[in-house]
């Protein structure tokens, strides 16, 4: 299918730069993200991955350059954007059931009381069904597992049928089974329903089959390209300014020798490599 070069990109950054005080996180960033593209943002802690999302959400101003979403300057609370945050537990007695959490995504931003309760309920039922959460629709969110909560976050984010889906480490602290379930839901929204997805993560392997392009941020530098282009020994060594080894095994990518010891280390394959040294 021809996606068409004439279409406005969903996200467009031109000469974009961000810095906190004297420290530049990244600068001169030119990126276009198209509809139906799964765009992963990788990099060590503190490289500005989450700030990149905040810029798109309108919660963070660029230091230089411009950014547009769907052809317009970013605005806070745009209905064109869905947002999936990191999993964060709710207190067990939070007065909110699974379906109420999803309904916040449908009309929680509107003023006044909910008048058209029936329409909202139907929409919530459809969204719960979409993410396979119907069985625990009436369970308080504080009593759900992290994986179940993240499914609800997906439903909440999809409520507005967003053109752009922003995901901030949505798989963090989920078990393997739920990582697969949640990432495949996000992939479906991207490649079947043609939303652009910006997926911030420090671990590419859970989504490696879905990723179209990667933005790798490190040490104030960045590289954009397909995973094959970016996830190489040469590129990452240059970004980190030190020798980094990239190994491919069974379709997975293992990065060895990262200066930032906190990233990538929970990978089992990697542990094996470590022992081999």
């Amino acid at each position, binding site marked *: 299918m021809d996606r068409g070069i004439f279409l406005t990109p969903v996200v467009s950054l031109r000469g974009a730069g961000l810095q906190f005080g004297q420290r530049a996180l990244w600068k001169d960033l030119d990126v276009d993200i198209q509809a139906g593209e799964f765009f992963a943002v990788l990099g060590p802690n503190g490289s500005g991955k989450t700030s990149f999302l905040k810029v798109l959400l309108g919660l963070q101003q660029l230091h230089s350059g411009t950014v547009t979403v769907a052809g317009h300057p970013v605005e806070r609370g745009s209905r064109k954007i869905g947002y999936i945050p990191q999993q964060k537990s709710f207190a067990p007695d939070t007065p909110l059931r699974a379906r*109420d959490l999803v309904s916040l995504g449908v009309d929680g931003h509107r003023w006044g009381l909910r008048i058209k309760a029936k329409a909202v309920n139907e929409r919530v039922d459809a969204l719960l069904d979409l993410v396979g959460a119907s069985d*625990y629709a009436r369970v308080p969110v504080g009593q759900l597992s992290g994986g179940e909560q993240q499914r609800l976050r997906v439903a909440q984010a999809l409520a507005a049928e967003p053109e752009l889906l922003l995901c901030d480490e949505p798989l963090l602290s989920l078990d393997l089974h739920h990582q697969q379930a949640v990432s495949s839901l996000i992939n479906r929204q991207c490649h079947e329903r043609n939303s652009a997805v910006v997926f911030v993560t420090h671990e590419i392997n859970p989504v490696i089959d879905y990723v179209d392009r990667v933005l790798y941020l490190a040490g104030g530098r960045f590289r954009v390209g397909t995973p094959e282009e970016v996830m190489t020994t040469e590129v990452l060594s240059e970004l980190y300014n030190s020798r980094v080894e990239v190994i491919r095994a069974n379709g997975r990518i293992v990065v060895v020798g990262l200066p930032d010891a906190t990233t990538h280390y929970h990978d089992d394959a990697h542990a094996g490599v470590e022992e081999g040294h």
Partner: protein
Amino acid sequence: MDLGSILHTIFNFENYGELLALVQNSVLAGAVLGLLGGLIGTFVMKRDLAFAVHGISELSFAGASFALLIGADIIFGSLAGSVAAALLLGLMGVRARDKNSIIGVIMPFGLGLGILFLALYQGRAANKFGLLTGQIVSVDTVQLQVLAGTAVVVMLALAAIWRPLSFASVDPEMAEARGVPVRGLAIAFMVLLGVSVALSIQIVGALLVLALLITPAAAALRVTTSPRLVVLLSVVFAITATVGGILLALGSRIPISPYVTTLSFLIYVVCRIIGNVRANRGINGRIVRPGAAMGQAAEDQAVAG
């Protein structure tokens, strides 16, 4: 005083019919405050502001006693004190921890000021005591109208911000990403809370405002997590406590607050027991599909085999 006469002092229903006609306005005022307290209370619980209510009520008490001292309108004094406290908390304390320490600082200061003003006051002792512990004030028609009018304004404002306030209360980060003005709503709610506290003090007194603004909502949350039902139950519980308290207190010369707080407390205890029984039975609304469970068991067996 023997037990019988103590009981007679607490529960006295002589000439009940005539008394009832006299306090009709008070009963109506109690119902209005119950409605308001039940509604506001659900947000107080969601936003974890129980301690803040206490702090606001002490400053409201200081305002009211100052008004008493200088011969100004008490309702106006308590309104000024509580709205000032609420705004201060809304503007200063963003994190719960900051907020609690600020409240801890404000509360004794407000109480101390109030005691100072009351000590300077030369009028009737009952007026002083009433501010702290509540009383069946002989609510006249004008007072009732002011009270009801203010309560209606607060409830209309609450209705206008109901959905985004709920969003910002239970899921603040997401609400912010969605463009909900989280900070502005926090301040707006504090003002509404301040006004509600000032109104409630007229009936239950500064020390016992929590019984009206916290306990009913807390009780409702023990038995349901459905947002609608929480609101409905909270309002029913609060009205039961205020109106029931006034009706029980009618014949005695004891202030109304022990009746209101006891009713409120009993409702909470019953709800807590119901909630615990349900939790122990594992009832939480999850649909357990027998097929899925058996499939899981079969899988486990296959693994074991």
